[in-house]
């Protein structure tokens, strides 16, 4: 007979069996038993954060940079509610994390007990699924199911709420090696006939575009995308979440599309006669005014989540399945038919001529003024100095868009950014998660002076763990993206976008034992960045950029993507 284990022991054992070696968390009364168990478990590294939101973003950063499931552990009540933004961030971007929350003892649930909150109720709309464990006998199965649900199908966050008495109760440990849920069976294998239809559309097309979304990265389909593009000579554009899913330096890359996409990407999509969308969900930042989106194009949409298909735009050939498998099948058909690559090239020759005209007409660019540091210049320099070999996290706003435009991402899982929810304060804790999981890689957070202050407390966490993260603050003294909207659409009425107090980031870095650097003139940028990259410590680089620099091109919200405001 198996020996009995406490709930807390089962939880830690389950983490071990799921291959979890890092947990981000913050203790409290309702999880003290689990922490007691972790105390005896050196195989699992616990990273003590300074705020539970930081723990969820760090788990998310670990997940995005490795493809594994990120885990965080927090207490009941405020500990649990503090994770909500992080959970919603992961949910919108389909990132697999498991959030373990403590809960008051089962007999107190519903009594408004101290630090009680209905966290499964609160997170129901922003988790892929969640559980409240009410019997210790269900615990092992539930944890297994949580990891299974988080990582399979369209990945997402799963929360498991763990009442204190369940952590203390004892039962025999029975670990289900495999889990079957009758109500949850994601479809991986695409329908062959649908893929054949897609092929026929390609044959009939003269102006095709491949649209790469985050699903390409989630399913690891980047090589298939590349093979398809190269074999058929098709231009590739990416959503923010898709950056890195196809090499940004590739001659066939059009860069990002959408609100702050390149002129040529938006023009190509608008004039295309066929869009092969892979793991993208046609978010409003991508489509602009939906009625005017790619009016001449037939759309092939590959996605593992049927709800993404036909949600925002009408689709001609829906393909439900894993992006990697669907593309592999398409490539199989292409090779079977065996049309020479040269013929495809010929077929799209005029299309490429047109795209080259667009590229030459409005390349992605910015103006130097000799006096101010231009943020685009900083990103370009950073790209040059790192040779693109880094994991780059961003906050949200202008810093994020300049990064997406000017840093060229060649590999998947190298850009970590809150795309769907647009969470300011995401980047820095995500960088902590990424650096913990990738100790030998260079991890950078590109921030604004606004965003960095949203989770600045995590500097202490980074120092605890001796993480040499480079935080590049593009400091314009404004909440820049909102200011840009106010400038363009609200007659420059700058309402609540300027902080009266901004901390001295250099001193702040020093206060935490980190290194602070500053650049205020264009000719200081390179030196300061070099110094930061050479420093084996947490570095905050405060770069004073042109205060009213905007992100362009820009498609005003709700307008057609061809109506771009250029530089």
């Amino acid at each position: 007979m198996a020996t009995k284990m406490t709930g807390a022991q089962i939880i830690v054992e389950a983490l071990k069996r799921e291959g979890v070696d890092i947990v981000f968390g913050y203790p409290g009364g309702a999880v003290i038993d689990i922490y007691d168990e972790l105390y005896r478990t050196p195989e699992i590294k616990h990273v003590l954060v300074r705020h539970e939101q930081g723990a969820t973003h760090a788990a998310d950063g670990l997940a995005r940079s490795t493809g594994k499931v990120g885990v965080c552990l927090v207490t009941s009540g405020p500990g649990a509610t503090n994770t909500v933004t992080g959970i919603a961030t992961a949910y919108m971007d389909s990132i697999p994390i498991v959030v373990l929350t403590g809960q008051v003892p089962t007999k107190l649930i519903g009594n408004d007990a101290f630090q009680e909150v209905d966290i499964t109720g609160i997170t129901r709309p922003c988790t892929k699924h969640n559980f409240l464990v009410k019997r210790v006998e269900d615990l092992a199965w539930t944890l297994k199911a949580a990891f299974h649900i988080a990582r399979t199908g369209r990945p997402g966050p799963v929360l498991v709420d763990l009442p204190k008495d369940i952590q203390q109760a004892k039962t025999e440990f029975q670990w289900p090696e495999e889990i079957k849920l009758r109500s949850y069976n994601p479809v991986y294998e695409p329908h062959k006939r649908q893929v054949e239809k897609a092929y026929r559309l390609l044959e009939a097309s003269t102006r095709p575009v491949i649209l790469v979304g985050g699903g390409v990265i989630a399913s690891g389909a980047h090589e298939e995308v590349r093979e398809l593009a190269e074999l058929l000579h098709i231009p590739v554009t990416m959503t923010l979440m898709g950056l890195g899913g196809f090499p940004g330096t590739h001659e066939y890359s059009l860069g990002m599309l959408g609100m702050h996409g390149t002129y040529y990407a938006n023009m190509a999509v608008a004039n295309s006669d066929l869009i092969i969308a892979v793991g993208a969900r046609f978010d409003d930042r991508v489509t602009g005014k939906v009625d005017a989106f790619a009016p001449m194009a037939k759309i092939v949409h590959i996605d593992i989540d049927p709800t993404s298909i036909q949600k925002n735009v009408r689709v001609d050939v829906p393909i439900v399945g894993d992006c990697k498998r669907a593309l592999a099948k398409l490539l199989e058909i292409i090779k079977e038919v065996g049309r020479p690559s040269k013929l495809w090239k010929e077929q799209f020759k005029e299309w490429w001529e047109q795209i080259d005209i667009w590229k030459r007409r409005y390349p992605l660019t910015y103006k130097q003024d000799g006096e101010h540091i231009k943020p685009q210049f900083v990103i370009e320099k950073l790209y040059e100095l790192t040779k693109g070999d880094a994991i780059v996290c961003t906050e949200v706003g202008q810093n994020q868009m300049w990064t997406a435009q000017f840093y060229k991402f060649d590999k998947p899982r190298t850009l970590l950014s809150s795309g769907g929810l647009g969470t300011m304060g995401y980047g820095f804790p995500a960088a902590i998660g990424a650096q913990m999981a990738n100790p030998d890689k260079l991890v950078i957070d590109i921030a604004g002076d606004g965003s960095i202050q949203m989770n600045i407390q995590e500097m202490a966490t980074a120092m605890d763990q001796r993480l040499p993260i480079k935080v590049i603050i593009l400091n314009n003294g404004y909440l820049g993206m909102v200011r840009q909207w106010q400038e363009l659409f609200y007659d420059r009425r700058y309402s609540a976008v300027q902080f009266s107090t901004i901390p001295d980031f250099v001193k702040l870095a020093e206060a935490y034992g980190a290194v602070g650097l500053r650049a205020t003139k264009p000719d200081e940028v390179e030196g300061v960045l070099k110094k930061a990259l050479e420093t084996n410590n947490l570095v905050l680089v405060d770069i004073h950029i042109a205060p009213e620099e905007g992100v362009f091109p820009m498609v005003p919200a709700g307008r057609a993507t061809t109506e771009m405001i250029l530089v």
Partner: protein
Amino acid sequence: MERKHTLSVLVENTPGALARIVGLFSGRGFNIDSLCVAETLDPTLSHLTLVTHGDDMIIEQIIKQLRRLIDVYKVVDVTEEGEFVEREMALIKVRAEKETRAEVLRMCDIFRCKVVDVSPRTYTVEVTGPESKIEAVIELLKPLGIKELVRTGLIAMKREKKSA
């Protein structure tokens, strides 16, 4: 074009499953016209009949979104499945004073309603049938004075083929 759809949903009989479904409708701005839930022969599954309306793209989204919920086992759009039987029940407490008591009973007779509770001034009437019948009875009883009305919401079942 907006149309009414009756959805038949099998869902795990677990706490929170219903909240997930209802939350999906409110969170995404879908409509629930009526909702009826009860256990099935298999006590681990609940059956839900849900009446909603919307254009084709909305209905497609509703069905897909329901299927995406981990607890949802099966969704059938009964409206699209051909012929189906639909039933609803209502309890109507109608004023029945001296001069109208006979009139109420006559109405009940015509519509095959049952009187399930009697007081000196009211009858409580049970009526079963498709939605159109329930609505007809309500319309006809209204002038006599309806004091209280409770409806169950629709349940539906696909009709079997008439020939082998």
